[in-house]
């Protein structure tokens, strides 16, 4: 039998003013019937490097294990590339650029990119399962968001390849040559698509390195690139750790490097390339404010808050990790938020009903635990639902800190996990001041029924993406990227394309 949060009448008349409605809590009273996704991810036991259109063994002969964070089992072995392998990838890319891709008409390039989009759609279910097993994200997210959005990015950018005269009005554009890219583990396939699609449409060739914990879907995409008949060397995928990434960023052939990852590593890359003429784009960290005004549709806002911070276990650079709520509605919002969090399902990422999957790696789990301990120590009030966590694997309960002040580390540092810090404000000006009082500037959320206030907030917030009465929405046509220490350059839309070309 379902039960109520408290043993009181659910009739509205029985409520005191401002008190939230009792909510249905399923708790453990109903036995939960698992509904796992069973499609075959078609994984190979071992993945080699993808260089010059072929899978090749790493020159070191070394492989490392890719672990399923949901149950700590080994999924596959991944090749560890060294500087020589990275160099081979760049030579292949250079050759492909000089001989084939750089000379090809935009119309023909477009067809290849369209093919990639279509082939990915064909195998979407398989890719979604692989993505979830490799990274720990809920299958409903990889199935409904990551994979279709990755395909959409290829499809959108394909159409640009023969329309580049319209990218920079008044000027002609030309490709840069070979570009080096390093991507993170939070959206492995989607980030790959964000990086490859605009670069390919512009006529560049690519050396890309996926994150060490999430290389599998990149290498599955390599199979698909072969099926698409993409000329050898146009896209080269090298796998490994930080040193491999450094070799990709620092290679002499790279005309431009694009990095998505932490601000800390972004700064290291910027310093290491200071003496070069390489173009750069950086997609770095964030500590987004999600601002709820007292006239907001509160129930919708609560859904937006939950989606803002718990989407992909909070492993999202634009996560709404700082909730700024107007004092007059703070109690109500917090109460509703807690009730909502109580019914989130945390557990097996392959289960179609799972809301919060596994934390991507043991290391990331330790980082989250460390920062949460700091939050408790600094005096914030912690709330976690009493959900059961699987015995094996890396999991973390959705966590809400209230009573947080701007100086708390959990209000300043990117946690990259399902941890929300709640702060309050009284006036519009105070909301703006608090929202902007951060070194980051990637995204922000605003919840209000007042149109003029939305536009005022959107103007004042120092962030590259502002979600008004919504959160965590993405689209290939919509430029994404940060202000300040969240990086520079945009991905998506016309603006994103311009970062992969030169004006001539």
């Amino acid at each position: 039998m379902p039960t109520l949060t408290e043993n009181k009448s659910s009739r509205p008349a029985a409520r005191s003013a401002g008190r939230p409605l009792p909510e249905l809590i399923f708790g453990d009273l109903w036995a939960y019937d698992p509904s796992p996704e069973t499609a075959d991810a078609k994984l190979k036991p071992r993945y080699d490097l993808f260089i010059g259109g072929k899978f090749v063994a790493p020159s070191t002969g070394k492989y490392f294990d890719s672990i399923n964070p949901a149950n700590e089992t080994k999924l596959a072995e991944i090749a560890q590339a060294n500087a020589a392998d990275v160099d081979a990838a760049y030579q292949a890319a250079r050759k492909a650029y000089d001989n084939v891709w750089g000379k090809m008409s935009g119309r023909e390039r477009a067809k290849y990119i369209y093919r990639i989009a279509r082939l990915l759609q064909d195998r979407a279910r398989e890719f979604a399962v692989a993505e979830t097993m490799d990274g720990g994200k809920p299958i409903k997210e990889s199935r409904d968001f990551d994979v279709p959005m990755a395909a959409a990015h290829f499809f959108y950018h394909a159409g640009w390849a023969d329309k580049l005269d319209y990218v920079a009005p008044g000027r002609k554009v030309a490709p840069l040559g070979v570009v080096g890219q390093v991507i993170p583990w939070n959206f492995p396939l989607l980030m790959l698509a964000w990086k490859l699609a605009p670069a390919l449409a512009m006529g560049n060739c690519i050396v890309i390195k996926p994150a060490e914990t999430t290389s599998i879907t990149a290498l599955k995409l390599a199979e698909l690139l072969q099926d698409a008949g993409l000329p050898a060397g146009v896209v080269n995928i090298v796998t490994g750790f930080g040193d491999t990434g450094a070799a990709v960023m620092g290679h002499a052939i790279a005309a431009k490097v694009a990095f998505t990852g932490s601000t800390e590593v972004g700064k290291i890359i910027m310093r290491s390339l200071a003496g070069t003429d390489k173009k750069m784009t950086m997609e770095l960290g964030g500590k987004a404010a999600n601002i709820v005004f007292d006239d907001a549709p509160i129930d919708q806002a609560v859904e937006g808050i939950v989606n803002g911070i718990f989407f992909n276990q909070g492993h999202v650079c634009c996560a709404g990790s700082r909730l700024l709520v107007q004092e007059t509605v703070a109690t109500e919002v917090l109460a509703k938020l807690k009730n909502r969090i109580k019914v989130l399902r945390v557990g097996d990422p392959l289960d179609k009903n799972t809301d919060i999957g596994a934390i991507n790696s043991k290391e990331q789990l330790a980082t989250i635990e460390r920062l949460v301990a700091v939050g408790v120590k600094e005096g914030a009030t912690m709330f976690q639902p009493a959900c059961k966590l699987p015995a094996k694997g890396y999991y973390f309960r959705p966590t809400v800190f209230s009573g947080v002040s701007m100086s708390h580390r959990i209000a300043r540092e990117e946690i990259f996990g399902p941890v929300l810090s709640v702060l309050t404000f009284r006036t519009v000006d105070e909301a703006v001041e608090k929202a902007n009082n951060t070194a980051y500037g990637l995204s922000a959320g605003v919840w209000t029924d007042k149109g003029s206030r939305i536009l005022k907030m959107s103007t004042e917030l120092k962030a590259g993406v502002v979600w008004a009465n919504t959160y965590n929405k993405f689209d290939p046509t919509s430029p994404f990227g940060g202000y300040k220490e969240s990086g520079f350059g945009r991905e998506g839309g016309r603006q994103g394309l311009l970062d992969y070309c030169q004006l001539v």
Partner: protein
Amino acid sequence: MPRLPITKTPKVYVGGAFIRSESARTFPLKDAAGNFFANIPQCTRKDLRNAVEAAAKAGPGWARRTPYNRGQIIYRLGEMLEARKADMADALLIGGASKSAAAKEITATIDRLIYYAGWADKYEQVLGNVNPVASPHFNFTVTEPMGIVGLLAPEEAPLLALVSLIAPAITSGNTVVALVSTAQPYPAIVLGEMLATSDLPGGVVNLLTGFRKELVPTFATHTHLRAIGGVASADERKAIKLGAADSVKRVKLSKTEEPVDWFSGKAQSLYDVRDTLEFKTTWHPIGA
């Protein structure tokens, strides 16, 4: 007896006021014939920090001006320069320019200001757009000025290059702290006097005279400078990029060793305006 003329004490234009360096240091400037002309302020890192503070104060107000208003103010600056061509020609002659070269540089500078004045209320229409997202949302991308921009002017074309760097940045509402030509600082001193009589609010453009070696490191590391532009040597570029990493500053520098033709049509561009812009995308659901 002929009348002894009154010589001018050159002061730099910072925060809408004319200052000497806080250090009270100067360096002598000789005219083209090698005679002593005047003592130019040798601005310090502290002067640079003060200038950034002035630019920070002026920034929000300038960015909030309507594009039409910013366009008119930049146009007005062109009017000021046109009316005082003779003063500016004299300033350029001190640096060794011929009369015809000075006249050419001044008219090119005026035309450049008029070019950017016209962009003020148009660049948004070319660079921003509505995005046709595949969901029921209205989604649009607009530009915003980055904030305070640090500019390093080259030694040559002491007026035209300086204005070619300043104008695109302020067109969109940025404020500027510029290090002017060390070899030929005087045209920038006179430009400051014209800026003061234009309608440009104090602090929007701040001009510093002095030595690059002394000031470039602070340009590189000052966290309130959101972008660095202009012209720099290989060593300076490296130093600036290293410093820029600390606060993820935007850097776009031309190379001293590959001189820019400031008179060319390519030295003015919508994309120079774009270089000091951020792009902001706003989403809102479409519904009832």
